[in-house]
């Protein structure tokens, strides 16, 4: 589904990612763990073409996507919950969701999809006419996920979707991700909450200072010394 091959990036003179390779199979949940500043968001931005790789290549469904513009890349079937959620603040909840289906605009499906998202997040239905900036953090998180799902992505990239949410809501979001995955969407999840993430993911990668320092199934990662010391404090 997604293959990142030996990608390196730099911000100006500073090299950020070094020779990063990851592989995501269809229907999987893969996770990316790593401390603050490791370059997790940078990797997401590189996949999306917001940051250009200096070397290496990125393949989505067998075709190279590095070199395409962001809008071309996401139109191939990638949904994004970006770091910080980045909802459209002055637009209503419904407008945010509709924009998620931008690529399929003109199909008669949009209204139906909107209903499905509202069924998934009844809170959003109640607040469909509310200006997004005035919504609570939790509602905004749902909105960001709902927006990403409106495009019916094959691959969903989530960059810390649970940041700043209450434990109960975090639980809900993780259940939601699982449900989305069961319906056939491949998921790539960036998270700080290692325990929960490893319980959910099939396999994962560990990123440190721009390099992949560990990879394996969720169980393997959970057993590894780095993860145990750095994240699980076990």
């Amino acid at each position, binding site marked *: 589904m997604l293959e990142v091959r030996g990608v390196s990036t730099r911000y100006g003179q500073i090299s950020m990612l070094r020779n990063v390779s990851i592989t995501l199979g269809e229907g999987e949940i893969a996770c990316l763990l790593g401390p603050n500043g490791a370059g997790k968001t940078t990797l997401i931005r590189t996949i999306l073409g917001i940051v250009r790789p200096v070397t290496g290549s990125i393949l989505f469904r067998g075709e190279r996507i590095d070199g395409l513009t962001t809008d071309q890349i996401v139109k191939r079937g990638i949904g994004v919950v970006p770091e910080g959620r980045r909802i*459209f603040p002055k637009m209503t909840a419904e*407008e945010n969701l509709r924009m998620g289906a931008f690529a399929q605009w003109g199909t008669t499906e949009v209204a139906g999809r909107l209903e499905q998202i509202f069924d998934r997040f009844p809170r959003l239905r109640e607040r469909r006419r509310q200006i997004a900036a005035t919504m609570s953090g939790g509602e905004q998180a749902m909105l960001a996920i709902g927006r990403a799902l409106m495009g019916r992505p094959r691959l969903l990239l989530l960059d810390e979707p649970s940041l700043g949410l209450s434990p109960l809501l975090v639980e809900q979001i993780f259940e939601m991700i699982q449900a989305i995955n069961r319906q056939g969407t491949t998921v790539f999840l960036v998270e700080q909450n290692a325990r929960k993430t490893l319980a959910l993911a099939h396999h994962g990668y560990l990123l440190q200072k721009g390099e992949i320092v560990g990879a394996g199934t969720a169980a393997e990662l959970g057993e590894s010394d780095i993860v145990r010391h750095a994240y699980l404090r076990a």
Partner: protein
Amino acid sequence: MIGVWAVELGLFVLVVAALLAERPIAVGLTVAAIGILLLAARTSPRLWGWVATAFRTHRAAALAGAAVLALALPFFLRASPYWTFVATMALIYVTIGQGLNVQMGTAGVINLAGAAFAGLGGYTVGLLTVRLGFAPWLAFAIGPLVAMVVGALLFIPILKVRGHYLALVTIAFGFIFNILMNNLEFTGGPQGIKNIPTLRLFGHAFTTAPTLFGVTLPSHANFYYAALAMAALVTWLAWRLYNSWVGLTLNTLRDDEIAAKCSGVSVTRHKLLAFSIGNLFVGLAGAFYAVMVGFVSPPDFDFGYSLVMLSVVILGGLDSIPGVVLGACLLIPLPERFRMLHEYRLLLYGAAIVLMLLFRPRGLWPAGVRRYGLGSPAGSFGAAGTRAEGVGVSR
């Protein structure tokens, strides 16, 4: 419905009285009456609620009533060519305001060179007719296109950069335009271009005083009606755009460019679209101005006017189509009525912008929330019509 018309008629009478009153006392009284009425309406929630509901439920009647009154205005102002001219200027600014609003209000693309783009439209008409002998109507049609194309070509590289840079670059562009017009030989230098031929419609020259229903109106009434048609057309187009998927897409650029990209929006292309549509409208107004006054010169399009245009949009309400109309109809006639204010025009506009941004950042008539409903007319726009699934309004 009758109530709506009564409100409109009452306001109309007061406004006309305020415009035509000779003595300062009479002016003061009528303006005070308007102010007190508006204040009363705003401070009494019941009264305001009634007015708002009445206008919302009888939208078509309200629009029809406003149209009739707008058409009737020259008859009431017929004693005064001057006020007919001012009313026409207000309509020209409605057109300009809608253009700038597509750029700044809807897409967040800052343009501080409105006057220069109007000037491109106006100078094109002048050059084509006077220097090259084009037919006036043809030149009038080409003017706005030139404003649009020049804007697009010059700004493609710059539209990629964000916010403040664009503001600076457009300011620079405005000044460069003025310097060029002042110094180039073929644009007539500081004298500008004189004797731009007027338009004719069915053999009727726009400089001939029209007689309607047995009443002879000042010749400016021709331009008033033409400007009314232009402003109405542009406002209608802007309204359609606002309610279409294009309007919504442009809103995402204003709100968050990265998120827009992540939703599949091509940021540069859509910014260019907003910039071009806006400049087309602004250029149209400039071309209209040129044929109306019959000459163009550099001071007609200097930076001060760009600020006036900006104030119209900010006062009315960014991204608010009716707000732009209100803003232009307030800001243009007011300084003309109070001549003592005229000298401090720019100060007044500057103060209006600052006060609005501080106390009422969404403008006098803030943009409403689009409604999407079942059975709503599909908002469509031009070539994009087929993609306009369900983004219509139903109110």
